[in-house]
């Protein structure tokens, strides 16, 4: 079965919610006219990126009619769109909504807010606290939503794969820098490697939609891509320019991909959990979980009875 996925690579207007709602609505109409089943918009498509203290001015609730109205007239089309969310407890989050037929069917709040180098997100927005895959029904079963920097933390997409996602949607606002090499830009190489690796290791399709345009001194590089579950590129948008590209995902490729390379099904989550629990306890200097587990071998190397926990801050 074919799923047509559109990547709407656009340049939002900074701080102008109404103008961006219009822009998104227009692009969505184009994409649905082209037969798209899923339309993906970039990170903060409704607000622009470098908001700083404009954050509360452009924040909306996840049940805001303006948000739910996006794509409400086309009940068979799923839309992923980035916005600033004001939560019920008045946290401001960099969120991506998954909408269908006027309903919010999925929501992800950016977990990893880059606050280093040219990024200052942690100053203006709060981090999400959940990493889930969203039920969307056949043929994709579940979709894993994430926002830009989230993808630089491989546990996140891999957890979503283990949670059942057959498609990962990453919405991004990646600024170009260091146009030093013949290949073009720093960061693009890293993005390509991780997308291809996650697709391969997760036998999962990936829709990456990165914005274009300029804000202050930043230029966003675009280059949105749709990847099949073997890491092959099914569609790719140009660098820097607004574009609407549609790629076709053949769901049979997901099925056979997971038969040929069954690594996702072979994952040992209980083992991962045990070791993660141990590392957390170790780092925090708290008592380790009672059952440390063993690998069941008589000649397993002896574990020291007690060892100094690794602390972030040494006591004075």
């Amino acid at each position, binding site marked *: 079965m074919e799923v047509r996925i559109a990547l709407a690579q656009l340049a939002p207007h900074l701080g102008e919610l109404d103008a961006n709602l219009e822009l998104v609505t227009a692009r969505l109409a184009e994409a649905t006219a082209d037969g798209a089943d899923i339309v993906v918009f970039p990170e903060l498509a409704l607000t622009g990126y470098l908001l700083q*203290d404009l954050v509360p001015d452009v924040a909306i609730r996840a049940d805001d009619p303006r948000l739910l109205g996006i794509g409400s007239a086309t009940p068979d089309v799923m839309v992923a769109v980035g916005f600033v969310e004001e939560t019920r407890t008045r946290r401001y989050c960099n969120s991506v909504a998954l909408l269908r037929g006027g309903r919010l069917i999925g929501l992800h709040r950016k977990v990893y807010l880059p606050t280093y180098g040219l990024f200052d997100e942690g100053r203006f927005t709060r981090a999400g606290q959940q990493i889930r895959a969203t039920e969307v029904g056949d043929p994709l079963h579940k979709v894993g939503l994430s926002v830009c920097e989230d993808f630089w933390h491989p546990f996140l997409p891999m957890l979503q794969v283990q949670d059942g996602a057959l498609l990962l949607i990453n919405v991004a606002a990646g600024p170009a820098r260091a*146009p030093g090499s013949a290949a073009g830009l720093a960061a693009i190489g890293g993005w390509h490697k991780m997308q291809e690796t996650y697709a391969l290791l997760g036998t999962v399709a990936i829709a990456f939609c990165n914005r274009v345009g300029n804000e202050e001194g930043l230029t966003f590089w675009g280059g949105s891509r749709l990847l099949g579950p073997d890491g092959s590129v099914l569609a790719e948008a140009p660098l820097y320019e607004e574009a609407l590209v549609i790629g076709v995902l053949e769901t049979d490729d997901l099925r056979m991909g997971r038969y040929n390379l069954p690594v996702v099904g072979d994952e040992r989550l209980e083992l991962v959990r045990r070791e993660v629990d141990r590392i957390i306890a170790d780092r925090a200097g708290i008592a380790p979980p009672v059952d440390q587990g063993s690998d069941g071998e008589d000649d397993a190397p002896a574990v020291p009875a007690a060892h100094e926990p690794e602390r972030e801050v040494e006591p004075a």
Partner: protein
Amino acid sequence: MTARPAHIELPPLPVIDPGTTADLIVAFIRSQMAQTGFARLVVALSGGVDSATVAFLATRAVGAKNLLAVRLPYRTSSPDSETDALRVVQALGCRTGIVDITPMVDPLLALMGDADADALDDAAQVRRGNVMARQRMIVLYDKSVEFDGLVAGTSNKTEALLGYGTQYGDMAAALMPIGDLYKTQLRALAEHLGVPAEIVAKPPSADLWPGQTDEGELGRTYEDLDRTLFALVDRRWTVDRCVATGLDRDLVEWVAARVARMEYKRQMPPVAKISLRTPGIDHLYPRRRPGSRRTT
């Protein structure tokens, strides 16, 4: 001083892809125009490679008829500077104008007790250079109102990091198209853009007095400076690592000290924090934001 072992390679010069860089800067300029509500640019054209490069980029971004290249000679300016500035104007077909700043500068210097212009100590020379740069700024900003354009700055990254420029003079601008490019990168970009070869090839000079060259005044070559700055700033190398990689310790220490000392030229002046919310400290907005676009 021990000789550098032959197998050690100096830290690299920063490299750019000129095509990509030109595209990025042109997109940046266009977006600044759209976000501010201006269609035109004004640039001070000295005849040197930096302002020529900005003029070429500006022409790509807004078109020749929307660019005013202002020539601002002083009586001691090299005639070659004027020839080269006109080469740029001819190549681009942009608008141009000339204002001789001598009648602004000389009476001012005389008024301030600097009549003996030809026998100058270092401090007086710095003062003269600053006065000239600031008079040029006054003319340029006045022209920008007359022409209804934004002032495009011509400062580059080497100058900014070394503080080799005059505050509120040549450093004054509405936007800085080449502010993140080292001098040696600019040459590659200029060649790519088709800046006349004579301009790319000649020794860089602020042309504030006869025979002045940047490299003579700074006492280092741009290659050495850019290699050092790229290692210290972009790659965050320590002084010792730069030296171990073959750079001269005097050079590296001089550059590191100068970058630190000139921090004040790269930032807005500090504001004494009194209130709950202070511009620049915790009143933080993008410069181009809703409502900031001019309406005519």
